[in-house]
C-alpha cells in the first residue's frame, strides 16, 4: 500500500481539519454547556438555589436537543450555519452543528460531575458565609475538577466521532476523506488509513485527558 505524495498531504490536512473541528467545537460547546450545567446543578431541588421552574425548563430543552439525531441536526441548522459562517460546507461550517449537538451533552456531563461534590463541603462553605458565586467558583468547580476533566475527555471523543459523521455531507476532515475515497471510489486502503488515524486520535486525546485529570486529583493519599 503505497500512497502518492498528494494522498499523504490530503490525509495530513484531513487530520488537521478533524482536530480543528473537534477542539474548537469542544471549546465552544463548553462555553455554552458549562454555564447551563452549572445552572442545572444550582437550581435542582437539592442545589444551592433550588428553582423548580428554571430547572424544568432547561431540563426539557436539553433533553429535546439531545434526542435529535446528529445527522438530522446537521441538515436542520444549515440556515443558521450559513448565517454564521457564510457557507454550509467545509470544516468551519461543521463547527456550528457540532457545538449545538455537544452543548446539551456537555451540560449533562457538567451537571453530573458537579453533583458528585460532597453536600457537606457545600454546607461548610455556606456556614462560612460564602455567596452562591463563591460556592460555584471555589467549591463546586475545583472540587469536581477531576470528574469535569474526565468529562472533557469523553466529550472530545464523542465530538470527534460526530465530526467524522459530518463528512457525509461535505463537512471536511477525515470523515469526508473516508466517505469520498473509501466509499464512493472503493479505495478501501484510504478508508482503512483514515480509520487508523481516527482511532489513534481518540486514543491520544483520551490518554492526555486521563493523565491530566489524575495529575490534578488530590483525593488519593
Amino acid at each position, binding site marked *: 500500500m503505497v500512497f502518492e505524495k498528494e494522498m499523504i498531504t490530503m490525509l495530513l490536512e484531513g487530520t488537521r481539519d478533524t482536530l480543528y473541528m473537534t477542539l474548537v467545537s469542544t471549546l465552544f460547546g463548553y462555553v455554552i454547556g458549562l454555564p447551563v450545567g452549572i445552572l442545572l446543578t444550582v437550581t435542582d431541588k437539592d442545589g444551592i438555589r433550588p428553582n423548580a421552574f428554571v430547572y424544568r425548563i432547561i431540563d426539557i430543552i436539553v433533553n429535546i436537543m439531545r434526542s435529535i439525531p446528529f445527522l438530522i441536526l446537521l441538515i436542520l441548522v444549515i440556515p443558521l450555519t450559513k448565517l454564521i459562517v457564510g457557507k454550509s460546507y467545509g470544516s468551519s461550517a461543521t463547527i456550528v452543528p457540532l457545538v449545538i449537538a455537544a452543548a446539551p451533552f456537555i451540560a449533562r456531563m457538567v451537571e453530573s460531575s458537579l453533583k458528585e461534590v*460532597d453536600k*457537606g*463541603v457545600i*454546607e*461548610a*462553605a*455556606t*456556614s*462560612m*458565609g*460564602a*455567596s452562591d458565586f*463563591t460556592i460555584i467558583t*471555589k*467549591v463546586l468547580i*475545583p*472540587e469536581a*475538577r*477531576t470528574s469535569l476533566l474526565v468529562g472533557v475527555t469523553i466529550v472530545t471523543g464523542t465530538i470527534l466521532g460526530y465530526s467524522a459523521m459530518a463528512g457525509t455531507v461535505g463537512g471536511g476532515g477525515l470523515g469526508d476523506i473516508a466517505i469520498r475515497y473509501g466509499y464512493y471510489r472503493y479505495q478501501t486502503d484510504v478508508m482503512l488509513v483514515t480509520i487508523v488515524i481516527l482511532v489513534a486520535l481518540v486514543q491520544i486525546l483520551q490518554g492526555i485527558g486521563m493523565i491530566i485529570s489524575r495529575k*490534578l*486529583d*488530590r*483525593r*488519593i*493519599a
Partner: protein
Amino acid sequence: MPPIIEVKNLCKSFETKEGRVDAAKNISFSVEKGEIFGIIGLSGAGKSTLVRCLNLLERPDSGDVLVNGQSLLAMSPKELSMRRQGIGMIFQHFNLLMQRNVIDNICFPMEIAKVPRAKAKQRATELLETVGMTDKALAYPAQLSGGQKQRVAIARVLANNPEILLCDEATSALDPQTTRSILELLQHISKTMNITVIIITHEMSVVQQICKRVAVLDSGAVAEQGDVKEIFTSPKTEAAKRLVISGVRPVDLMHGKKMVRIIFDGQSSYEPVVGNVTLAFGTPVNIMYADTKDIGGSAVGEMILQLPEDPITAQRMIDYLKERKLVVEEV
C-alpha cells in the same frame, strides 16, 4: 448584657414520604458568652436540625434565633452572610475541601471574608500551630487521619475569629482517645479565645467531659435542661435517663429485673453501703456496673445494683440507701 444566643419557641417540620416530621417543637434555650453548652439526644431527636437553625442553614418555620440580641431571621441575605462569618461550624465528617491542601483549606474562609492573601497565609500558619498541625501544612486531607482532619477543620473555623462555634457531632467519627484530645482542644480554644461553644452529640461522655450546661432533646423537644452534674446524678425525664444510662451499657440486658442506679458524690459518707446492705438484709445484691466519672471537674461515682426479686425487701433496701443520702433511682 443579653445572652450570646437565645432561641425562642423555635419550630421546624419537614414533609417526608412518611408524612410530617416535627424536627423541632417549640424549643427555647439560651447560651451565655464563653460557655460550653451541650445539646444531647439520640439519633432522630432533632439535634442536627436544631444546630442548623442556629446559623440558618435551615430556616425555622416559626420562633426566633437571636445572636447578641439581634434576630437572624430579620437579617437580609447579605447581613446574614456577614453574621455567619462570626458563627463557625465544625462537622462530623470534617467537610474539608479535598482538592486543597491544609494551609489553603484554612485560608478558604478568609478568601470569603476578602482577607489579603499574604495576611491570610500568615494567620493560617499561626492557627496550624494552635491546633498542633504545623508539619502537615502542605498535606492534602486524603493523607490525614480523622483526628487530624478535625484539627484542620477547627483551625479553619477559627480563621475569621468567630464568637460562636457550633459542633455538629464533631467527635462522632473519631475513636475515644482522639475524641478526648479534640474535646481538650475545644476547651482550650473556648477558654483562651473566649469563644462560646455549642456541642451537639449523642454521647453523654462528651457532654460530661466539657459542658457545664446541657439540654436534652427528645423527639424534637427539649426534655430537660440544666447543669450537667445535676442531670447526670438525677435525670428527671425518661429521655435523660436513657442517655445517662445507655451511654455505658446495654439497657436491654437489664430490662425487667429489679435494678437501681445509685450515685455517690463528694458528700456521700464513707460507709461501705453495699456491704452493709447485704449484711443488714441477709441477702446479697448483685453489682452490675460501677464507674467513676469526672463531671465538670469533680468525681462522681455511679453503680447499678440488682436487688432481690422480693419487692418488700427491695423497697426496704432502697429506703436504706436513701437514708444514707445516696441518690437512688430505679432503672
